């Protein structure tokens, strides 16, 4: 390790992690003699100070944790609630309207008249009977 570049890499590492005793001793000796590497070290330390001086910013809005659906408060608009109640009342009232049998009894003709259809029962035909017919 002779070049300034190698020592400057070591200076950079030294800012992030501890060096071995041997590495640290070599670096100390070199920095004491080399103005170029001293400048780099000062610059890197200065940069660290500048970046660390940046304040932690605070957010304008707090965290919004969504609650589970069964814990959510339901806010319904008044017209929707009124319409739902009206529908319930209407369906309840229709339960008391006359049924179809009651309507027939009261001579009310049904809407659809289904004519009676004769059902022909088909008997099985044996092979002998078929041969006789032919």
């Amino acid at each position, binding site marked *: 390790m002779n070049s300034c570049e190698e020592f*400057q890499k070591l200076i*950079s590492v030294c800012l992030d992690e501890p060096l071995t005793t041997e590495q640290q001793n070599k670096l100390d000796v070199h920095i004491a003699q080399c103005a170029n590497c001293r400048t780099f070290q000062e610059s890197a330390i200065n940069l660290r100070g500048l970046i660390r001086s940046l304040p932690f910013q605070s957010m304008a809005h707090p965290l919004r944790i969504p609650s589970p659906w069964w814990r959510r408060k339901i806010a319904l608009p008044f017209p929707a609630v009124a319409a739902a109640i009206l529908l319930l009342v209407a369906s309840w009232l229709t339960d008391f309207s006359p049924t179809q049998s009651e309507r027939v009894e009261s001579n009310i003709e049904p809407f659809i008249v289904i004519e009676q259809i004769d059902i022909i029962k088909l008997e099985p035909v044996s092979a002998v009977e078929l041969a006789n017919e032919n």
Partner: protein
Amino acid sequence: MEIIDLQDWQAFCHGDNSAMERLYHRHSPALFSFCLYLCGDRTKSEDIVQDSFMSLMAQKESNKISRSVRSWLFVTARNLVYNLSRRISLQSLDRLSEDHLATNSNPDINLIVDRILSSLPPDERELLLLREHQGFSVSDIAEMLSLSKENVRIRLYRIRKRIQEKERTLK
């Protein structure tokens, strides 16, 4: 901090929502600052922090956080910033400068820091912020960014060297 985070995370997984609020209060300022200094947009940074915590909450079912909660949040936020960067330019930190001036007592220093951060590409800015502002170790950063430790060390050296050379040219 990691043990407290883990305890709060376990409490949240067992239905204690206040534990998530504690995690939020502990980490949101640092996470928000990281996003803000990285992308330069206050509103988008707030959305990213919110989305990061929502993603964390979504992990409740699996109850699996492969790394520390703090690292997990930063990696998630960082990925969201990069998704955002497909639409906006991270190079522009004009609005960030205004934010600094509004909050920091020393506007001269802020201008210098803004100039430094603005001059770096997003990946280097991110690395510098994680190391120097957030105080993550080289090992943590290597794990978070899926890099080798040696790669992180070399990148940090190059960033420091480049900034020193820029300082020299400015003088």
